[in-house]
């Protein structure tokens, strides 16, 4: 809502408050003012001139030589290039020395040999916004009203001496979508009176009116009132009215439309004027549209309606979409002489639904949506009738005609002083609270030491005690409320176990050199299809109205996000990438969601590129085992020592270099090299990634620390090297050794994997170092040898291993 400061002065005394001060006060009490701006750039030395004579320039067809009276002794000779300049016009004249908004400085000049002293200006030369002017005013020079005072500054004539306060209204304060509403607010802040516009037209309602009104859709329309006005002369509005509309950001059209807009701005009640002669019968029927019913609106668009949209009809044809836009078939034109003026109370939800569905938002629909004051229906209607009489020569036919159902009335709310203080932490007296209610012009009814507040219908945001407490708080001043700390039982704050573990996971991965990233949950189809980790049948979740194809689906894995981050970095000169993200993935097995999907918290990592350059050469490189080491270390930190890694083919991964990770039979994630094709697609070289499902991990995490006494007896070390088939998974050997070794096998360390033709075709040698210890006694050589031989036997029997000598 744009509020003209000068206009507002009509309703509330502002003689001692500047527009800037007013803006600050409004903002501090809850009506945020975004900006305070002058209506137009200040114009010095631009005055009203009167064109005494106009002659064609002897040397140039398109130029006129004008004699212009600017209120000084001598008329000025001014050359003008506009074709519409004429004798007898009042025009804006920029005098010598004036500076125009575009930077032009007016000097004495000679045009084709003829002297020109000053300049007759067009609207755009004055810095006016052409979008807010009728077309004829933007072409050529601007012609001013005949009654403008010659020689006076142009500023008051065009309303340039005004300021506009741009309100950023919260949805609850629709009452401030009207000048009167803002006036009530300002009056409450300043503790002043509100002046309602005077009107000599009474509120009389007739039953014998020539027009008949019928509300058939009571749910969507509670009150429909109208007036019939004859002998209307449609023409341009007086300048003051146009100035008001322009300040509010509305383009003047003609006096009838302008008056309805003016009254809408003043009262917050949208009005609509029908050309009465275009009605098929003297009747208004308010009904719901039929399915697929068509209407051509004022903007010449054909609209297809549904059966929940409210229509205004003349009983034969629809003539408006209620509260949203009129139909072209009943539009007021220059030929219109009889007007049926509508002032109605339409249901906000209904209007909102219709305007949203049709994508048609107007100043009127905006106000209906948020709720208008049902008690301003007559006031607005009569105010407009009065103005039509004054400014369009209209004659009122009879009084108001209407169909009225039940409309909201004033509400009574008990306001307890104790509750106010309990809620705010203040120490206010009853009288202070009452005085705030009085400033708001709310009624007060005393009742056994407490009081009821009578809230007028203009404040439909107030329906219970807490709403009144808020009024007290904001008018008393939030800055007056003290700062205290909650009084009550002390509670211990803290992280839950899972939250602690999550932070620990991050610490471990960062310790291994991985950088945390945060990416978007929405992905493209391409990304979605990059990897498929989940085995069960799930369907990707699609946004119903995505912003773009790139962000259309909910991610089912974080790995595609990490690939995207890696690609970005590779292409931005960061080739060595070690990243992780802890976040949510979304899965559902429904095509059309009826329940919330499964949200999995996962930890995913990706490593590609090289290790940091070091001048001392080492043969350490990033490969599967490098990344597996990081993951093993992470799991160990979480007390998980028995994770199993089994080869697995996973979409998006290298089929020979990928493992499924499980703990005690439960799948927790995957680890592997990204499929070379996918690597290529993301501009990557060898890249390794893992994704672990934390929801599965929680069951396995063991954070308990089991202290064991340090060993008292010595350990014995034996190495064992065996030759086995190349394809044999070493994990099998390890498991066999562990089981066979039993309790005295304290530790097993794989220290060599050797492949050579010397070992035989498709053979490899695997060497372990075994540590034996008994907690109770010193082991003898014989005891260890016995176990050692058992292990060897098991390897020979199970895997046809040969001891390597």
């Amino acid at each position, binding site marked *: 809502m744009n509020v003209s400061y000068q206009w507002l002065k009509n309703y509330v005394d502002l003689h001692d408050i500047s527009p800037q001060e007013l803006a600050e006060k409004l903002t501090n009490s*809850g009506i945020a003012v975004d900006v305070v701006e002058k209506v137009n750039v200040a114009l010095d030395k631009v005055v009203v001139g009167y064109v005494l004579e106009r002659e064609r320039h002897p040397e140039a067809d398109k130029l006129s030589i004008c004699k212009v009276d600017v209120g000084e002794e001598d008329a000025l000779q001014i050359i003008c290039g506009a074709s519409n300049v004429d004798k007898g016009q009042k025009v804006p004249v920029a005098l010598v020395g004036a500076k125009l908004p575009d930077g032009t400085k007016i000097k004495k000049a000679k045009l084709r040999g003829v002297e020109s002293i000053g300049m007759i200006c067009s609207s755009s030369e004055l810095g006016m916004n052409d979008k807010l002017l009728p077309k004829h005013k933007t072409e050529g020079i601007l012609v001013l009203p005949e009654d403008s005072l010659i020689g006076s500054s142009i500023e008051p004539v065009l309303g340039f001496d005004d300021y506009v306060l741009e309100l950023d209204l919260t*949805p609850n304060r629709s009452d401030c979508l009207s000048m009167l509403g803002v006036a009530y607010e300002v009056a409450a802040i300043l503790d002043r009176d509100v002046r309602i516009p005077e009107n000599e037209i009474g509120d009389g309602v007739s039953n014998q009116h020539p027009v008949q009104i019928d509300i058939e859709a009571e749910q969507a329309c509670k009150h429909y009132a109208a007036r019939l006005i004859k002998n209307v002369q449609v023409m341009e509005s007086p300048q003051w009215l146009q100035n008001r509309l322009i300040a509010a950001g509305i383009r003047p059209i003609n006096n009838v439309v302008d008056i309805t807009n003016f009254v809408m701005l003043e009262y917050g009640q949208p009005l609509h004027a029908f050309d009465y002669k275009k009605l098929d019968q003297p009747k208004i029927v308010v009904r719901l549209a039929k399915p697929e019913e068509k209407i051509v609106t004022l903007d010449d668009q054909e609209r297809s309606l549904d059966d929940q949209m409210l229509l205004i009809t003349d009983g034969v044809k629809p003539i408006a979409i209620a509260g949203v836009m009129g139909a072209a078939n009943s539009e007021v034109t220059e030929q219109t002489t009889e007007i049926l003026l509508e002032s109605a109370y339409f249901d906000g939800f209904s209007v909102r639904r219709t305007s949203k569905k049709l994508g048609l938002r107007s100043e009127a629909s905006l106000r209906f949506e948020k709720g208008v004051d049902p008690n301003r229906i007559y006031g607005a209607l009569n105010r407009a009738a009065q103005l039509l009489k004054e400014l369009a020569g209209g004659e009122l036919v009879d009084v108001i005609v209407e169909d009225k159902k039940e409309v909201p009335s004033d509400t009574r709310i008990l306001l307890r002083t104790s509750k106010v203080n309990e809620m705010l*932490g203040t120490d206010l007296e009853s009288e202070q609270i009452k005085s705030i209610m009085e400033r708001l012009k709310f009624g007060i009814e005393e009742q056994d030491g407490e009081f009821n507040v009578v809230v007028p219908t203009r404040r439909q945001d107030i329906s219970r005690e807490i709403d009144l407490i808020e009024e007290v708080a904001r008018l008393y001043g939030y800055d007056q409320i003290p700062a205290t700390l909650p009084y009550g039982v002390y509670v211990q704050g803290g992280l839950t176990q899972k939250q602690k573990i999550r*932070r620990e996971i991050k610490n471990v991965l960062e310790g291994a050199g991985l950088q945390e*990233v945060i*990416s978007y949950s929405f992905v493209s189809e391409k990304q979605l299809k990059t990897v498929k980790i989940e085995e069960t049948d799930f369907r990707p979740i699609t946004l119903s109205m995505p912003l773009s194809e790139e*962000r259309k689906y909910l991610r089912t894995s974080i790995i595609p996000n990490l690939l995207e981050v890696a690609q*970005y970095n590779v292409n931005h000169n960061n080739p060595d990438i070690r990243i992780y993200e802890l976040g949510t993935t979304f899965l559902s097995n429904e095509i*059309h*969601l009826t329940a919330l999907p499964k949200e999995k918290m996962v930890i995913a990592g990706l490593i590609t590129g090289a290790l940091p350059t070091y001048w001392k050469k080492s043969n350490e490189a990033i490969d599967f085992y490098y990344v597996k080491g990081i993951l093993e270390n992470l799991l160990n930190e979480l007390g998980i020592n028995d994770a199993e890694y089994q080869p697995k083919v996973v979409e998006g991964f290298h089929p020979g270099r990928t493992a499924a990770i499980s703990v005690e039979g439960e799948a927790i994630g995957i680890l592997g090299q990204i499929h070379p094709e996918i690597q290529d697609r993301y501009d990557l070289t060898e890249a390794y990634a893992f994704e672990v499902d934390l929801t599965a991990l929680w069951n396995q995490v063991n954070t308990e620390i089991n202290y064991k006494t340090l060993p008292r007896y010595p350990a014995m070390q034996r190495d064992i090297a065996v030759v086995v088939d190349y394809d044999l998974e070493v994990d099998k050997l390890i498991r066999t050794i562990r089981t066979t070794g039993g309790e005295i096998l304290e530790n097993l360390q794989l220290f060599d994997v050797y492949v050579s033709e010397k070992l035989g075709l498709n053979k490899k040698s695997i060497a372990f170092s075994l540590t034996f210890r008994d907690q109770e006694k010193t082991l003898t050589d014989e005891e260890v040898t016995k176990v050692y031989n058992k292990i060897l036997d098991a390897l020979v029997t199970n895997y046809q291993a040969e001891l390597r000598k």
Partner: protein
Amino acid sequence: MKEKLEQLQSLALQEVGQAQTMQEINEIKIKYLGKKGPLTEVLRGMGGLSAEERPIIGKLANDVRETIGKEIAEKEEVLKGKEMEQQLKAEQIDVTLPGKPSLKGNRHPLTKIIEQIEDVFIGMGFEIAEGPEVEADYYNFEALNLPKEHPARDMQDSFYITDEILMRTHTSPVQIRTMLNKNGEVPVKIICPGKVYRRDDDDATHSHQFIQIEGLVVDKGIKMSDLKGILLNFAREMYGEDTKIRLRPSFFPFTEPSAEVDVSCMMCGGDGCRVCKNTGWIEILGAGMVHPKVLENAGYDSEKYSGFAFGLGIDRIALIKYGIEDIRNLYTNDLKFLKQFKRV
């Protein structure tokens, strides 16, 4: 005998004097003092001596042994020192060569700020609550006093999946879920951090996904002044002891009275600068007293209990704190960007 011993001694000392390496010294040691050495021989041959001569020669032999031993020991010290010196010299390295790079990643700047804020509130007795990112319309809107078709829903344009399921537009639904789980018990004292989603085209200041932290306290006798006190504490922990806060009336459907909360500008201390657009204040929070309808929806008697809630955007705080010019940088994850947030 005596001459023989003296001769032996002078010979030995001469050899010791000439020895250059530890190995030579060791050989000398064995040669003269070893089990098969001449001294042992002398002592062995003492049987043939007279009773008078025996102690004299015995003492002399011991003296010779001691003298030689002492000389050897001294020489050993000298040679060891020399050898060590040589060894150290040989082992000298260029200490100016760079060390082996060790790898260390760090938190994303948003996580750093979340954890910092979490820790501040944990210190004030809060717990951390979490909830789903895909929410039911009921929890995201209706329970929060935002019925369908409520005009205030326009404040948060949302990503729907079905008519009833959407991406949460704030973390407030976690408040509802937490209260419902508590089954009417008090106190409730939580903060809820998490990702939220709104239909905004991404640009320098807007992101369709961002991170929010909301707080909620419900108990008997919770007042708006308590909200002010807690937020003042928070602001001081985050931005320093001298930080001030300012509450301005505002509107949120789920709180009443509602407030926008400004903190005195941490860049200029309130004198006015580019960051605070010369106002001295920076808006960081929305807050208010929990609307009685919300309490009722979550199973609390609003006559008996009251509460306050607040919410802040982490991305915005990060942008201000680090002077980051574009919110998209937080989600592009350029390593050159992320690596700058290493410090504690």
